[in-house]
């Protein structure tokens, strides 16, 4: 490799972007982050739609939109964990579904409270995520292929758990959790979502294993040399994603007051969670981003979705809209597109020698 490496370096060094960020003020740097942009975009969509349709602005509707974003927001927080280690998990939707269905049936038949159901949902999620992690880490199957396989297996399990019935009647405590508010207009579900996000953010910022996720995602070689147990970190990332997806299943159950065989999959939660992560500024090339962006992006997607419905667009187009949004998010993000922004790509007249593909760390 070393014989080939020198000409590549020779070619690439002049092409490095100028580092102007360090000279900007702190305020400008904050403005360049993804999170404020998302808040501004969400508010812009909200006020534009209100201008068109005044009833969009009622407190009930705002509350409803924030609540309806929560299953996705929690799921996106989970999806972030694998994306930080260069993974992807397209089996989160059926994991959510299995957790929702199995806890839902227990609650429906035995009247179990959600306090009892919480450990169950977490355990189901963590177990299913662990299976993903073991295949990815020890059988060395690429994450997308592993989770495509488990997507069909878990989806089948979910369907066979449900059979021909569905979870329809839940104990009253679940309805209280759904409709109740702590302060006026701040519902329990929103609080739960925010708490999950804060806990996940603290985990990523303040704990050793949280930092290890970034290290492994950024540079496996360096992480290994630094004494991080790479395989253990990879497995735990997938288990964590599953764990949070299980929690999202409980949130889903409370929000929809029921669950059925296709829960999670029919709502396109796989694509939506990946879109939320990428729009939230977390890259699939690993080691960059956090959970706040994906959380805010989930709210943005939900508000935009509602706004498009209010504008009278056929809801059938919703997946296409999310797909286009996903494409735009990765195209305009220099971290996603091989460290070349749209402008740099357009200015480059001659194709340079290929950069090392981001999926392969050079040993």
């Amino acid at each position, binding site marked *: 490799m070393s014989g080939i490496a020198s000409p590549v370096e020779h070619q690439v060094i002049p092409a490095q972007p100028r580092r102007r960020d360090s000279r900007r003020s702190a305020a400008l740097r904050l403005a360049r982050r993804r999170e404020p942009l998302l808040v501004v975009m969400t508010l812009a969509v909200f006020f534009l739609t209100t201008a068109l349709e005044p009833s969009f602005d009622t407190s009930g509707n705002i509350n409803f939109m924030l609540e309806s974003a929560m299953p996705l927001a929690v799921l996106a927080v989970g999806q972030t964990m694998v994306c930080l280690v260069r993974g992807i998990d397209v089996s989160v939707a059926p994991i959510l579904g299995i957790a929702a269905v199995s806890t839902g049936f227990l609650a429906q038949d035995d009247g179990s409270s959600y306090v009892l159901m919480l450990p169950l949902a977490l355990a189901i999620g963590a177990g299913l995520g662990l299976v993903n992690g073991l295949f990815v880490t020890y059988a060395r199957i690429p994450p997308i*292929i592993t989770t495509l396989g488990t997507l069909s297996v878990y989806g089948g399990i979910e369907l066979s758990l449900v059979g021909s019935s569905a979870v329809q009647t839940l104990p009253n405590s679940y309805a209280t959790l759904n409709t109740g508010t702590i302060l006026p207009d701040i519902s329990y579900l929103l609080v739960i979502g925010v708490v999950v996000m804060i806990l996940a953010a603290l985990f990523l910022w303040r704990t050793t294993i949280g930092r290890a996720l970034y290290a492994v995602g950024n540079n496996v070689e360096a992480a290994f040399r630094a004494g991080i147990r*790479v395989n253990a970190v990879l497995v735990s990332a997938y288990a964590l994603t599953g764990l949070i997806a299980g929690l999202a299943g409980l949130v889903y159950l409370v929000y929809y007051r029921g669950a059925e065989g296709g829960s999670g999959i029919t709502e396109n939660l796989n694509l939506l969670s990946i879109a939320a992560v990428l729009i939230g500024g977390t890259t699939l090339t690993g080691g960059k981003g956090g959970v706040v962006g994906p959380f805010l992006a989930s709210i943005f997607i939900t508000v935009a979705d509602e706004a498009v419905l209010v504008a009278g667009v056929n809801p059938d187009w919703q997946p296409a809209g999310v797909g286009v949004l996903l494409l735009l998010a990765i195209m305009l993000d220099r971290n996603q597109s091989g460290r070349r922004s749209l402008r740099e790509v357009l200015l480059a007249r001659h194709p340079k020698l290929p950069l090392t593909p981001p999926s392969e760390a050079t040993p």
Partner: protein
Amino acid sequence: MSTLPHERARPRSLRRLDADQRWLAALVGILIAELLFFNFSISGFWSGSGSSGWLGTETFTYTSIIALGVMFVIFTGDIDLSVGALAGFSGIVMGELHLGGMNIWLAVVIALLVSAAVGVLQGLIITFFKLESLLVTLAGQFILGASSVAYEGAVPPSSFPHHFVRLLGTGTVVGVPNQLIIFAVLALLSVLIVHRTRFGRQLVLVGHNRDAAAYTGVRVSLTRVRAFTLSGLFAGIAGVIIAATFNSVTDYIGTPLLLPAITAVVLGGVNIFGGGGRVPGVIIATFILGLLTIGLLDDGVGNNATSMATGVLLLVALTVKGVMDRRLGLPSLGDRLRGRFPPAPPAGSPEVT
């Protein structure tokens, strides 16, 4: 890799088979075992009764064609997650054009052109903006799916002309289903393209090592775009055949075909990271998978469990192949990934203090 000329010239005793050849031999063994099993467990398996048995290949031929298409993309180290949705979209485009009064064969040609164009577009987006094929085709899957729903409107197209349904769907020539003949032609073409043309060699080289391919003078981006074009075209063909088989087409028919298609490619021994594998392996794998599906359904196993079995098969095949390749000590899936997790440096080396 194994397709290099000097390796082919080696004497071929069984002991000196390389990993690809051993895998191929294993696949043939599995197929024979499977046929024997169904021979005894399903009465009338060979004569074919209705939609099952040996003549029931029309229940999986379209999946096999999608698998052949996505195989080209996997050879280059990319992935195409949009093929299933694209097949559905192609069928919808053809059906709607026909409903609009267009000649059915002209509609077919346009649907194929549209599918190939979608492949070109995705390939261009991926290579031009240097994006992950995984993300672009995932977005493509949902854009195509939603487009199918919106384009088909309230009434999905159905009731195509009789000659169209006969020729591409249910017809047979001397007892051989027409679809099997179409598949055989496409399979032969794929073998020739991958193993006998300059483009095929470049395809595998690009997947094996993109830098090396670029230094050799291969136009890497062009090769990748071509692979996506073939993938789109094959998915389009599959969509038209689906329409002919069921004499109708709906928006949700295509997307579930993605998983079996990728499973067939991987089971066929194509390296999921690109750069290795044999087309005949994929062809055999499509039959193993398709007959397994038919057999399980015939044995009374539900649709749902059959799809679960496909997922398990995919994971098991990849795990076994990884173990086999690592044991044979050939540069392969395991070794290429092991570069990511290198062994500890020797004791006393300068950076350890």
